[in-house]
C-alpha cells in the first residue's frame, strides 16, 4: 500500500548541532530539585516537550478510536495513526509502511516472531542462533520455542573484548540454521555488531536474520534495506518516545508467513465457527484497539531524532562515551567491559570497581544525582561469560554533557571514600 519514498538517512550532516540547546527540550532537567545527571538512557530515555505535547494534545483535542468509525474524530484518528506508521517506516527506511507493525514493545515483537514465525516452522534438529550478549528479551523467547520444538539454541561466543567471535560460531551459516536473532548494539558493552557482514553471509545461505535494534535505532542511522534484515524490532521508550509501544519491521514475505500472537478485534476479516480469516498485514498483528496516542508520540520522537540527525547523535554519544572511558580508566581499580577506546562503540559503558559492589556504586551515585544502573541488565548469559554477577553501567544520550561525566567521576571517587577500607 503506502509507499515510502524519502530515504531516512539521506540528510547530509550539518556542521554542528547545539546540544546544550537540545538539552533544554527535555523538561525533566529543569524540573528536578537536584541537578539530574541521567546516565540510564539505555534503560529508558527521557522525553522532549514535543513528544509529551503530542500525546497530551492527542487526548485533549483529537482523540478517537482508530480504524473503526466514520465520523470526523475517528477518521482523523485512523489517518494520523497510519501517518505515524509511515513516519516510523521512513525512520528505518522500510520499503512500505505495511511492513511496520505497532507492538507493545521490542519484547512483544520478538515474542511474536518467535512464536508466530519460528514456532510453526522449527523442526527437531533445527537451530536458532543468537549471541552471548543478547538481552533476555532476545534470548528467552528463542529458548522456549527451541525447547518446545526440539530445536537447538546456539550461541555465538564473544572474545575477550566483547566482540562476536564468529570464527568460533561453527555452523552459524549451516544448513540447520533457521534464523539468526542478534542485537545491533549490546545494552551492556556498547559493542556495535557487524550486522552487514553477518546478514550478507546469512542471506547467501537463505537464513533470515532478526535484528534487535532496541539500543541502536535511536542512536545511529538504521536502514532495513541496506541492512537487508528480515525482521527488526525496537521500543519507543528507548528513543525519546512514550512507554508501551514498539515496532516490528518484517519483510512482507516474512510477515505473510507469520501467525499472529494476539487474536482479537481488528485483526480478522471474517469470523467463522471453525476457522477465521485474518485481515491483511499489518492489521493482522494488531489485535485490540490500536494505541493512537502511543503511535503519535512514537512518530513525534522519530521526527525529533530525525531532525537532530542520527549521524550527529551517534557522534555525540560516542564522544561522550569516549570521554567517560578515559576518565573512568584513570580511576584506580576500575574495569571497563567491552571494546576498548580505540574501537567504535555506542554510548554505553559498563564497569566495576575492585572491592566495591555495583549496588553500592549506584546507590551512592544516586544520592548525588547521578543516575546509573547496577545489575545484570537483563543479560545473565553475558554476565556468565564475563564471570561476574553484575556491573555498574553509565549510558549516554545526546542530551548528556561533560558535566555528567564529571559528576560520575566524583560519585565514583566518593564511593571509594565512603566504602574504602
Amino acid at each position, binding site marked *: 500500500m503506502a509507499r515510502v519514498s524519502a530515504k531516512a538517512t539521506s540528510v547530509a550532516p550539518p556542521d554542528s548541532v547545539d546540544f546544550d540547546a537540545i538539552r533544554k527540550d527535555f523538561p525533566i532537567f529543569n524540573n528536578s530539585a537536584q541537578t539530574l545527571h541521567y546516565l540510564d538512557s539505555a534503560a529508558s530515555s527521557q522525553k522532549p516537550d514535543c513528544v509529551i505535547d503530542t500525546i497530551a494534545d492527542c487526548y485533549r483535542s483529537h482523540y478517537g478510536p482508530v480504524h473503526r468509525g466514520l465520523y470526523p474524530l475517528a477518521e482523523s484518528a485512523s489517518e494520523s495513526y497510519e501517518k505515524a506508521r509511515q513516519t516510523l517506516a521512513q525512520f528505518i527506511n522500510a520499503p512500505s509502511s505495511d511492513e511496520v507493525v505497532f507492538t507493545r514493545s521490542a519484547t512483544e515483537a520478538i515474542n511474536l516472531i518467535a512464536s508466530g514465525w519460528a514456532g510453526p516452522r522449527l523442526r527437531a534438529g533445527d537451530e536458532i542462533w543468537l549471541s552471548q550478549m543478547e538481552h533476555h528479551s532476545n534470548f528467552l523467547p528463542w529458548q522456549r520455542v527451541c525447547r518446545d520444538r526440539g530445536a537447538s539454541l546456539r550461541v555465538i561466543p564473544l572474545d575477550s573484548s566483547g566482540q562476536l567471535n564468529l570464527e568460533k560460531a561453527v555452523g552459524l551459516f549451516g544448513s540447520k540454521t533457521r534464523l539468526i536473532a542478534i542485537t545491533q548494539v549490546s545494552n551492556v558493552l556498547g559493542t556495535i555488531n557487524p550486522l552487514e557482514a553477518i546478514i550478507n553471509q546469512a542471506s547467501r545461505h537463505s537464513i533470515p536474520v532478526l535484528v534487535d535494534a532496541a539500543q541502536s535505532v535511536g542512536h545511529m542511522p538504521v536502514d532495513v534495506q541496506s541492512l537487508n534484515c528480515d525482521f527488526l524490532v525496537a521500543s519507543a521508550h528507548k528513543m525519546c518516545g512514550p512507554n508501551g509501544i514498539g515496532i516490528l519491521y518484517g519483510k512482507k514475505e516474512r510477515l505473510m508467513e507469520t501467525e499472529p500472537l494476539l487474536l482479537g478485534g481488528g485483526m480478522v476479516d471474517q469470523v467463522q465457527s471453525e476457522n477465521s480469516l485474518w485481515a491483511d498485514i499489518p492489521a493482522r498483528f494488531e489485535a485490540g484497539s490500536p494505541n493512537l496516542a502511543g503511535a503519535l508520540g512514537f512518530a513525534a520522537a522519530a521526527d525529533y531524532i530525525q531532525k537532530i540527525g542520527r549521524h550527529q547523535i551517534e557522534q555525540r554519544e560516542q564522544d561522550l562515551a569516549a570521554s567517560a572511558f578515559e576518565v573512568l580508566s584513570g580511576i584506580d581499580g576500575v574495569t571497563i567491559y567491552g571494546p576498548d577506546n580505540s574501537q567504535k562503540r555506542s554510548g554505553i559503558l559498563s564497569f566495576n570497581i575492585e572491592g566495591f559492589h*555495583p549496588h*553500592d556504586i549506584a546507590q551512592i551515585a544516586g*544520592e548525588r544525582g547521578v543516575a546509573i544502573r547496577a545489575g545484570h541488565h537483563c543479560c545473565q548469559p553475558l554476565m556468565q561469560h564475563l564471570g561476574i*554477577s553484575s556491573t555498574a553501567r553509565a549510558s549516554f544520550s545526546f542530551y548528556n554533557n561533560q558535566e555528567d561525566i564529571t559528576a560520575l567521576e566524583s560519585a565514583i571517587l566518593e564511593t571509594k571514600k565512603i566504602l574504602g577500607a
Partner: protein
Amino acid sequence: MDSVYRAVLLDHFHNPRNKGDLDAMDRVKRGSNPRCGDEIEVGIKTDKKVLESVKFRGRGCSICLASASIMSECTTGLTVRQAQDLIRQMLAWFDDTQADAPPVTTLAAFGAVRQHPARKKCVLLAWIALDEALA
C-alpha cells in the same frame, strides 16, 4: 536525602563479625538474590535451643554484608524462639516503612535503607536464610 551508609553499617562492612568458615556449624542455609547474584550462607550452632553461634559467609553489597554481620551479633545468645521473633519483627519493620522504632536499637542503622525498597532484599537476605536455618 538520608544516606543509607551510616557509620554503624560501614563499621560492620569493614569489620564483619562472625564471618568465616561454616564447617563447624550444625545447620547452614543459603540465601541468594538471582537478580544481583548475591549469595549469603548462614550457619548456626545451637545448644539446648539457644543460639550459641551464628556465622555467615558469602558475597554481596555493603548493605547485605553489614546486615549479616549485625544479625549475627543480634541473634547470638537468643533462644531459637526469640531469634524467630526478632526475624518476624525485622521483616514487619521493613514492610511498614512508616513505623518508627526498630525491633532492637542496633537495627536503627537500617532506618534509611527502608526508604529504598530495591535494597530491601539486600538487607533481608541473611535474615531469611537464618529463618530457614532455624525452621
